[in-house]
């Protein structure tokens, strides 16, 4: 029996969606993980550019803002259960626009309603954290506020990154007509803290704790609204290192992109199997 797993991948500008999609495809082709390709994918055109760039040891170009498509990947898990993974690819600005403009396009609305498996990519290094009493003592607050009063009013207020993230999740749930009176069991949510290799963390750091310390309000929101069994927080490094867009990395060319990339599981252990969290998300079992 084959199951259709329609994935809603949520990730803003430069959150690492394309690299993850391309590396996931490469892992599925390699057939060494929890999920593997059952037959040749119908078309890898959406990820061809990224796959080619990675094979040449360079990072891929930014995905065009208007791009929106998906690829159906026929996979099977270790028990032989067929899972057709529907994996999207799009310009990340579309997600940023949903939260900041509070507008959702019909195709995003459709996808939000149809998908019961959500993957949220957050690149913490690109997240702006707000100052608090520790990082900005009260005396500074007073002088800065006086300076702020002299600035033009339209620049006076900006949403913080975690407020925008929270707004985005609430908006998507609203569009889905999903009540949060009870903790959510659907959609299942996998939070991937992307580009983990660029974070100043040690081995065995627990991704959930990193999210809690960097984005405490958002973390509390997730814990308060999702059932414990339906929420997983992992670290993700799709490439293991920072590739340049114009200078090939010779080790990448010789060992191949499939030799790089890892996932930090909720308990802090690392695995090179990028398909593992997706497989568990698909079958609904905890990591």
């Amino acid at each position, binding site marked *: 029996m084959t199951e259709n797993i329609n994935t809603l991948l949520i990730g803003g500008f430069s959150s690492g969606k394309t690299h993850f999609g391309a590396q996931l495809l490469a892992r599925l082709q390699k057939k060494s993980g929890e999920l593997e390709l059952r037959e*040749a994918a119908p078309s890898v055109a959406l990820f061809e550019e990224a796959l080619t760039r990675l094979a040449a040891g360079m990072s891929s170009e930014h995905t065009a803002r208007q791009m929106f498509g998906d690829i159906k990947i026929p996979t099977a898990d270790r028990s032989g259960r067929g899972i057709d993974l529907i994996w999207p690819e799009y310009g990340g600005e579309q997600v940023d626009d949903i939260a900041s403009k509070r507008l959702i396009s019909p195709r995003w609305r459709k996808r939000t309603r149809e998908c019961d498996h959500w993957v949220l990519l957050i690149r913490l290094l690109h997240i702006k954290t707000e100052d608090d009493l520790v990082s900005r003592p009260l005396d500074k607050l007073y002088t800065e506020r006086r300076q702020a009063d002299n600035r033009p009013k339209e620049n006076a207020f900006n949403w913080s990154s975690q407020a925008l993230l929270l707004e985005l999740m609430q908006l998507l749930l609203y569009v889905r007509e999903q009540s949060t009176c009870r903790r959510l069991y659907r959609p299942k949510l996998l939070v991937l803290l992307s580009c983990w290799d660029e974070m100043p963390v040690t081995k065995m750091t627990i991704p959930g704790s990193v999210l809690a310390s960097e984005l405490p309000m958002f973390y509390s929101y997730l814990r308060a609204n999702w059932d414990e069994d339906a929420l997983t927080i992992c670290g993700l490094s799709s490439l293991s290192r920072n590739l340049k867009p114009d200078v090939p990395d010779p080790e990448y*060319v010789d060992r*191949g992109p499939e030799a790089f990339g890892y996932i930090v599981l909720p308990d802090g252990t690392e695995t090179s199997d990028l398909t593992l969290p997706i497989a568990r998300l698909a079958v609904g079992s905890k990591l």
Partner: protein
Amino acid sequence: MVDSEALSGEERGQSLLSYKLLADRLAAEAFDRPVRIIWSKSDFEIPEGTKERLKEHLARNLPNASQISVSVVGSHENGGKARAHFAELLSWLLEPALMELPCAKSNPHSEDFFLGFGS
């Protein structure tokens, strides 16, 4: 046909990727038909890591495919071997019993003697 020159050059990463994608596509369409992988221009030295990765991919996706290396360079020194490989390849291609192909009976509706030959 795997081009050893492409796999030994600067763009070997991209070439390897396209051969892997091609092998996947072939594996999905070949069913039980015989497949032979020809490593052409085999006088070019493919870096060990690149060759191993492609071999592993081919072995996993086309496990029943046989392989042969051919090259036309250096045939003076190695003429016999090069000729033997080409001859083996051609005879394999032309072996209907091996390919389990039925011999088609021609039934041409043509006045042309050339097309009518064999009817």
